């Protein structure tokens, strides 16, 4: 094996990869909190605001049931938490709601939240949406809008 050529190709591949990522990361930094879906079709598939309320009730119970997420919510006031979630997701889906809660970053700043905790929360939201029969494709549209929030929620280490 010609080690020098091998090494050269490998180094060039790495360089191309890093250049590419630099371009995209710049775009990334410009992204704003609170991406919105287009239209109201997803909102309908979630069963409107009443559907979201049921989903968030279940989601809240799921979070308390899961040892990976429960410790983060010991001091959370359930009614307000669920209302904020309903407003936030309803707003994302153009359901005519306005989210008046705090920004993601300061709200989560006091906790050491790792990627595994964030993923656990995603799983519990998926379970709640499944429980209430939200079509999988519609679930993914909401999750796609929520996913970038990991940058403000997961603690930078």
């Amino acid at each position, binding site marked *: 094996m010609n080690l020098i050529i*091998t090494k050269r190709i490998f180094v060039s591949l790495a360089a191309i*990869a890093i250049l590419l990522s630099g371009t995209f990361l710049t775009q990334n930094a410009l992204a704003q909190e609170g991406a919105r879906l287009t239209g109201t079709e997803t909102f309908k598939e979630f069963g409107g605001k009443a559907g979201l309320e049921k989903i968030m009730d279940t989601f809240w119970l799921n979070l308390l049931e899961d040892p990976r997420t429960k410790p983060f919510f010991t001091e959370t006031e359930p009614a307000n938490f669920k209302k904020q979630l309903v407003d936030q997701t309803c707003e994302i889906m153009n359901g005519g709601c306005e989210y008046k809660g705090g920004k993601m970053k300061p709200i989560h700043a006091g906790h050491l939240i790792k990627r595994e905790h964030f993923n656990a929360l995603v799983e519990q939201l998926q379970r709640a949406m*499944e429980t209430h029969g939200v079509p999988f494709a519609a679930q*993914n549209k909401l999750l796609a809008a929520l996913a970038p929030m990991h940058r403000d929620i997961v603690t930078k280490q």
Partner: protein
Amino acid sequence: MEFNSLSRKTKTLGLLLAPALLAVSTVSHAQAPAAETTPAIPTTFSSKLLLTGGVSSIEGTAGGGLTPWAVIGGNGTADQFGANLFATNVRAKDYNLAVVGGLIGIYDRAELSFAKQTFDTRDVGGLLGLGNGYKFEQQIVGLKVRVAGDAVLEQDSLLPQIAVGLQYKKNNRGQLLAALGIPKDKGTDLYVSATKLFLSTSILVNGTLRFTKANQTGILGFNTGSYKPKLEGSIAYLLRRDLAIGAEFRAKPDKLGFKEDNWADIFVAWAPTKNVSVTLAYADLGNIVIKDKQRATYISVQAGF
């Protein structure tokens, strides 16, 4: 490097990995009761979202069935280990390829993989004067490093997850290959992969550029001369959290005296739990040595954390 030497290295690798796996499982065991009495958030394994670690490719690298993806195999996230063992069988009209192997994912950053392929020529071996059931074996050690991006969560960015990797391959039929005029029984493939989940459409796309000198992935040896860049791709549609269907393509060099074709497949992957996945595929492997139109059924089972 001689085959024995690789074999020895493989054993050494196994010996190194075994205590590592043991240590990881011991830690997990030790932490379970501690979570009851301390306020610390329990540290767990298998924290990736379902199927986002990919499946095991025929060369052991995490990805689709035929091609590497930029994901790190196993279910570990940034401060976790993940690991998988897999077995795959590809039954073509006139040949059979059996693969066993495993991998370790380290902090969702690096992946170390191993695979052993057994290519059974079945009756073709007899036709070639090698004897029915003549087998080629190939061992592959893979290393992959994620260099940028996050395929799953960066949904407001077009940046894919990007990884670079290599696959060091060693074949056990050097003498036969030499007699056929194929100069080498070992070689290294280099690749860069970009993988992106477009979650709002439930579609995952992967592109891989591989630099290779291998004939039929190395089972029929390696050529001298320069590396050939070859494009590979996968597209998958998520039907459910635990179920994906898709298609793959793998361009291959055609430097062998016998015609070598590009490969393609359609697949379904199912993960009944976080620890197990099953992949079924139907592949078109084209011409292999003296037998054309090799359509194959592919089944792969993977277990890990």
